[in-house]
């Protein structure tokens, strides 16, 4: 009843052994075959399954995998049976080559009761039943009851006879053999051989014999059956395993294999012959005892014994070994051993001990098993000795190999998780040491700060670890633990090690010469830089080749010695590409920091360039970087300046990375979109470009002091005056000059924006741009750009695969060009540029080197025509200097003007150093300059008239229009106790001049309203100027907004003491700058914009009128807006709300009316 009682699982196992014996399937053939098992059923075990009562519970257990997991020993056994069954089934399907659905039917047939019973019966009972059904306690069953497949051949059994157990045909030989079999059966039954040992056919030949008759004669059967039983007894008694339950003693003392053989040869003496004969009888029972129907395969029997013994005695021992590891193993979840309780004892040593004691236990057990096998093999060997067939000898050997392999599979598959965990810990430790990856020891959680580095060859620790690992792996292999699970484990560990090494060794290591390499010099990017190597990559490749691959080779060659080369060269290449992929991923994650660290991070870029080889990685890089950009740069917390600075770094970095600029193109849209929201972006760029390089700045500072005095004289005060000559052409504007010496000395020069910009220099500007501008490498571009192909370009490479359709390869880094194109349309940029330049020209120093250089650059980019205005502007300034000189010379000294001017203090002035200069602007070419009306001081007006006459003499038919508010003046105020000299705007100078009143003794007092009447100046300007002078400590604000001159700081005033005044003055000096800038801005906004805005509104009104007159008499708001958007040149900037407001005003003014939601003109 053995077969039946074992259930299909174990029958499967039994069959599996013989099947295995006949198979040359590789170590893991079982796994791959297993996938085929569905639908393929061995006919041999159909019966068993149908009859197997124990099978139910097995299946139940197998079905309840989750429960099983908790139950160590039987869980392992279950896994074992499951796997073995798969092996067998898979094998059979291969050997017999036919499929049969019976099995599946059978399975489903009794699958039902299984599950229900499994659920219904109590846990312990099931456990006992399972255990008993799988492992029989009584191992010595002398006479196998029957071989079910012989007695009950299945319908689908083609061969009708040879049970699969005896099918010793080797896998590769199978098809041939099977064909022969078929032929043999088809033709005639082969004569039974009854002769001596020498003619006993090799086991494989038994296949050739016909199946036993279905109803054999009883008498012969009895005799031969008895003989077989006797032989069976002899053999099994000899090879039986010790039944001891306390396996500790039972195989602690076993002799080694060699001793075992010796002993058997010496001692066995008489019984040896008996054994041999009995064995012969058993093996060739079908020939010798053709009528013995109840036969069995001795090898399969031994295999069963081994299994039973293993499960019963060895498994508990193994779990005993684990218990040494104690709570810790249980406490530490798998894969997180580092976080286990930090015991003092060496974590690794303890696990090493667990692993080693398990290995020793297994070794002892295996010795025991192989002893039995050894006897059998010897017996077989003797049988074969007689025959000359070399094939037979081979097969005997193969039998032993297969037994060994199956036993190893048994061990490997039943290894508990705990054991594997220990093995993992030991491996991790050893491999980490060998590969030079620092690993947290003893479960300590603190990661080591040490960087991973490839160990040197003479490092004793490494040598020891390597030696230990070799031993360990060999031992594992010998006891069968180096199976698939081990290989998976090993692969996982190696994978982790590679990641750790790459991350640990290269994170943040960007310096090009970190590994003793020197890279390209900083300033000149080399487009042809070799794309295939980098320092990090070389060292990583070295590590992979000399350490990683070497270790893999060593380990793999130990666990699968059959393979000729476990790690072929192609695998090494794969490892290296894997490693470079990890490096790429690392660098991609770091890319933003790399950009920030530019140019110190050049080495990292080399790495990236060398590793970003596929378009997938390129895409990964761009998407990853864009994401980082959004989270780290493009948010309101970053100033425009910072963003632009980073952008420059990005441009340079990406150019180094990929000089085709395709990558840059992928990440730019985000940036550009964001920069468009930053209104000051263009201005920042332009001021940055116009900023002098830092070293020049330093030099200039020194010079400035000296030049100030001299240059002030040259500094033409100019207020733009627009003159349109009737002859056409350029418009010339002379400017007003300024008077020096007179106390309120007026000099008109410069835009109100000029001081702001001067204040910003240099820390808050993009000085980088100016530096880049001066970099010759930047200007080297564009020469070959127009050509289709540069035939002399030896470093030509094809366009990148992810380049767009209209892709054109750029020739150089071209930071400025990229930056400008990112800022929107060139028109806007040029507009902004000319207004900035206008400001600088009007206010700035006498020379415009930087402006000219930038202008040149922009000309090259946008063309001469686009920047014509700027050209004219610069020429205006240069011309006006000449004209200015001529006028002053030809008009002679300004005698006419030599009217002594009384200061507030009542002093007269020496007229000789009075100066008045003008800048003459061509109106059409300058940005809109609003005229601000106010009355200049009389002396200045006289100067203006004088200058005007001079100009008209010089250039006939041209007239000047003065832009009074744009000038600059130097004012010297002589007060009672001090003299104050201030450079200020003409507006401010005019205001303070108004405080000069020779007829009043004591401080002059005026309110803003007084000044408004007197000067006819914009109120905003007046209050700004008053604040300015108050800040200078010249004026003091009294009650009701009346300002008074502080003649004497020490003299008490009406409102307070001198000290208070002084304090106030100082305080307001601090606030002065802000107020000044504010005022300037206001001036810009209120005066400049509103006039422009009015003009624009008038034009829009014309459009609306035209529309409602002609297109349609009445229109809804949306249609008006749509038409406006379509028709207004340069775009219609208003939204619907603004338009509605505008139209609402017109309705209120009575020009329009709203009828039925539509606007129409009032008739």
């Amino acid at each position, binding site marked *: 009843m053995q077969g039946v009682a074992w259930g299909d699982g174990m029958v499967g196992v039994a069959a599996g052994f013989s099947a295995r014996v006949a198979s040359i399937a590789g170590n893991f053939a079982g796994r791959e075959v297993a996938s085929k098992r569905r639908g393929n059923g061995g006919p041999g075990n159909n019966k068993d399954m149908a009859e197997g009562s124990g099978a139910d519970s097995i299946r139940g257990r197998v079905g309840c995998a989750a429960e099983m997991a908790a139950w160590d020993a039987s869980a392992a056994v279950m896994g074992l049976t499951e796997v073995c069954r798969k092996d067998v089934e898979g094998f059979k399907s291969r050997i017999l080559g036919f499929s049969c659905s019976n099995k599946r039917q059978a399975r489903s047939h009794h699958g039902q009761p299984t599950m229900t019973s499994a659920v219904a019966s109590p846990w312990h009972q099931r456990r006992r039943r399972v255990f008993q059904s799988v492992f029989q306690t009584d191992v010595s069953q002398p006479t196998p009851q029957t071989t079910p497949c012989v007695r009950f051949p299945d319908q689908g059994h083609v061969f009708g006879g040879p049970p699969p157990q005896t099918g010793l045909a080797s896998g590769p030989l199978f098809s041939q053999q099977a064909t022969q079999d078929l032929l043999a059966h088809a033709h005639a039954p082969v004569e039974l051989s009854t002769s001596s040992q020498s003619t006993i056919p090799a086991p494989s030949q038994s296949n050739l014999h016909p199946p036993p008759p279905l109803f054999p004669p009883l008498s012969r059967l009895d005799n031969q059956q008895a003989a077989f039983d006797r032989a069976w007894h002899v053999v099994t008694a000899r090879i039986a395993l010790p039944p001891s339950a306390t396996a500790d003693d039972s195989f602690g003392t076993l002799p080694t294999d060699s001793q075992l053989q010796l002993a058997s040869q010496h001692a066995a003496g008489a019984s040896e012959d008996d054994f041999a004969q009995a064995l012969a009888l058993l093996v060739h029972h079908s020939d010798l005892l053709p009528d013995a129907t109840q036969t069995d395969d001795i090898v399969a029997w031994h295999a069963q014994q081994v299994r039973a013994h293993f499960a019963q005695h060895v498994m508990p021992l193994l779990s005993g070994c684990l218990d040494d590891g104690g709570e810790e193993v249980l406490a530490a979840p798998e894969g997180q051993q580092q976080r286990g309780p930090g015991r003092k004892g060496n974590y690794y040593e303890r696990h090493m001990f667990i692993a080693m004691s398990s290995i020793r236990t297994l070794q002892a057990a295996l010795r025991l098993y192989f002893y039995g096998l050894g006897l059998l093999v010897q017996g077989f060997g003797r049988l074969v000795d007689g025959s000359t067939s070399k094939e037979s000898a081979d097969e005997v050997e193969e039998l032993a190999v297969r037994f060994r392999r199956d036993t190893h599979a048994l061990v490997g598959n039943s290894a508990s998780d705990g054991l594997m965990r220990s093995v993992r810990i030991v491996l991790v430790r050893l491999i980490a040491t060998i590969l030079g990856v620092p690993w947290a020891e003893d479960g300590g959680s603190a990661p080591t700060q040490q960087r991973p580095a490839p160990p040197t060859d003479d490092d004793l620790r490494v040598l020891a670890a390597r030696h230990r690992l070799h031993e360990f792996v060999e031992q594992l292999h010998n006891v069968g633990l180096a199976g698939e699970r081990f290989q998976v484990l090993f692969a996982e560990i190696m994978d982790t090690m590679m990641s750790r090494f790459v991350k640990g060794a290269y994170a943040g290591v960007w310096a090009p010469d970190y590994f003793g390499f020197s890279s390209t010099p900083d300033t000149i990017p080399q487009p042809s830089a070799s794309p295939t190597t980098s320092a990090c990559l070389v060292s990583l490749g070295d590590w992979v080749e000399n350490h990683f691959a070497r270790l893999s080779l060593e380990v793999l060659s130990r666990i699968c010695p059959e393979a000729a080369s476990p790690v072929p060269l192609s695998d090494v290449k794969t490892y290296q590409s894997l490693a470079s992929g990890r490096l790429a991923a690392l660098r991609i994650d770091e890319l933003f920091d790399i950009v920030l660290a530019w140019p110190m991070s050049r080495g990292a870029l080399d790495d990236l360039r060398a590793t970003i080889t596929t378009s997938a990685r390129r895409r990964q890089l761009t998407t990853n970087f864009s994401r980082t950009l959004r989270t780290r740069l493009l948010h309101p917390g970053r100033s425009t300046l910072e963003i632009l600075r980073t952008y420059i770094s990005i441009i340079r970095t990406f150019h180094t990375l990929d000089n085709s600029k395709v990558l840059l193109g992928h990440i730019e849209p985000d940036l550009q979109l964001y920069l468009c929201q930053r209104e000051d972006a263009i201005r920042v760029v332009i001021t940055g470009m116009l900023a002098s390089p830092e070293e020049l700045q330093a030099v200039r500072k020194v010079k400035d002091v000296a030049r100030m005095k001299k240059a002030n004289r040259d500094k033409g005060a100019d207020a733009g005056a627009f003159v*349109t*000559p009737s002859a056409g052409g350029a418009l010339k504007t002379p400017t007003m000059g300024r008077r020096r010496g007179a106390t309120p000395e007026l000099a008109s020069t410069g835009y109100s924006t000029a001081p702001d910009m001067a204040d910003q220099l240099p820390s808050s500007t993009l000085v980088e741009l100016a530096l880049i501008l001066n970099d010759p490498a930047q200007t080297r571009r564009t020469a070959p750009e127009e050509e289709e192909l540069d035939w002399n370009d030896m470093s030509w490479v094809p366009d990148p695969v992810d380049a767009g359709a209209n892709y054109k390869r750029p020739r150089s880094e071209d930071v400025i060009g990229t930056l400008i194109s990112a800022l929107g349309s060139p028109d806007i940029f040029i507009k902004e540029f000319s207004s900035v330049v206008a400001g600088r020209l009007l206010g700035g120093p006498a020379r415009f080197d930087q402006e000219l250089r930038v202008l040149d650059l922009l000309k090259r980019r946008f063309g001469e025509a686009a920047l014509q205005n700027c050209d004219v502007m610069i020429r205006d300034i240069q011309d006006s200097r000449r004209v200015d000189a001529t006028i002053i010379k030809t008009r002679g000294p300004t005698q006419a003007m030599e009217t002594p001017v009384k200061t507030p203090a009542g002093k007269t002035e020496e007229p000789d150093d009075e100066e008045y200069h003008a800048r003459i602007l061509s109106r*059409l070419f300058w940005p809109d300059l609003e005229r601000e009306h106010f009355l200049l001081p009389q002396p200045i007006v006289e100067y203006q008239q004088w200058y005007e006459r001079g100009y008209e003499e010089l250039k006939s038919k041209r*007239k000047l229009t003065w832009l009074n508010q744009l000038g600059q003046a130097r004012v010297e105020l002589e007060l009672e106790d001090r003299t104050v000299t201030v450079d200020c705007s003409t507006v401010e100078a005019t205001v303070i001049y108004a405080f000069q009143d020779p007829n009043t003794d004591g401080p002059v007092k005026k309110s803003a309203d007084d000044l408004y009447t007197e000067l006819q100046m914009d109120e905003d300007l007046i209050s700004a100027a008053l604040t300015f002078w108050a800040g200078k400590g010249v004026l003091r604000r009294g009650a009701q907004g009346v300002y008074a001159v502080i003649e004497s700081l020490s003299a008490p005033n009406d409102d307070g003491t001198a000290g208070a005044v002084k304090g106030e003055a100082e305080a307001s000096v601090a606030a002065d700058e802000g107020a000044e800038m504010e005022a300037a801005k206001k001036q810009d906004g209120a005066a400049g914009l509103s006039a422009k805005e009015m003009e624009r509104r008038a*034009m829009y009104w014309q*459009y609306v009128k035209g*529309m409602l*007159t002609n*297109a349609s008499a009445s229109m809804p708001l949306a249609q008006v807006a749509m038409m406006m958007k*379509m028709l207004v040149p340069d775009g219609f900037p208003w939204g619907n709300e603004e338009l509605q407001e505008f139209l609402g005003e017109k309705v209120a003014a009575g020009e329009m009316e709203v009828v039925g939601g539509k606007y129409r003109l009032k008739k």
Partner: protein
Amino acid sequence: MPYEDTHTSTAGSIPAAKLGGARKAAEPGQNAMKRLQTELMQLMTSPAPGVSAFPSADGNLLSWRATIEGPDDTPYAGLTFKLSFEFPSNYPYAPPTVLFSTPIYHPNVDFSGRICLDILKDKWTAAYNTQTVLLSLQSLLGEPNNASPLNGEAAELWDKNPALFKTKVMDRHKDLEDD
């Protein structure tokens, strides 16, 4: 402080015109569009008295509607006439098709509004524009070309019986009701 600038009104448009001129004509239609936009801009910034024009409400820039007020001292005084302009895609190298939408009794206009005016036919040059056409038509109202009438009766009456002419004009005229 003198401020002499005779081109005040058009100053802003000079660079734009320059730009337009410098640009190569990409497509004839584009060119026409550009030109029409400029013309519209001019009409809006410096409107001529008594005439106005604007693209039609459907947003087609090649189709305009215009309005002419009848000049004083003519039979048309106080009347308002609507016209439609259809510009060809090669405008300004071909004249627009101009029709009176408002019924008008005039020697050089037929009953379906077609106009006989040499500058809209063979005398057209690219120097003309919408505004000049409108001004020409306005003056045509006061000074019809009776030598080549489309409406012979009107041409006769113009000289012989101004009173009857005026009556006919008033009879014929009918203000278009806007949609």
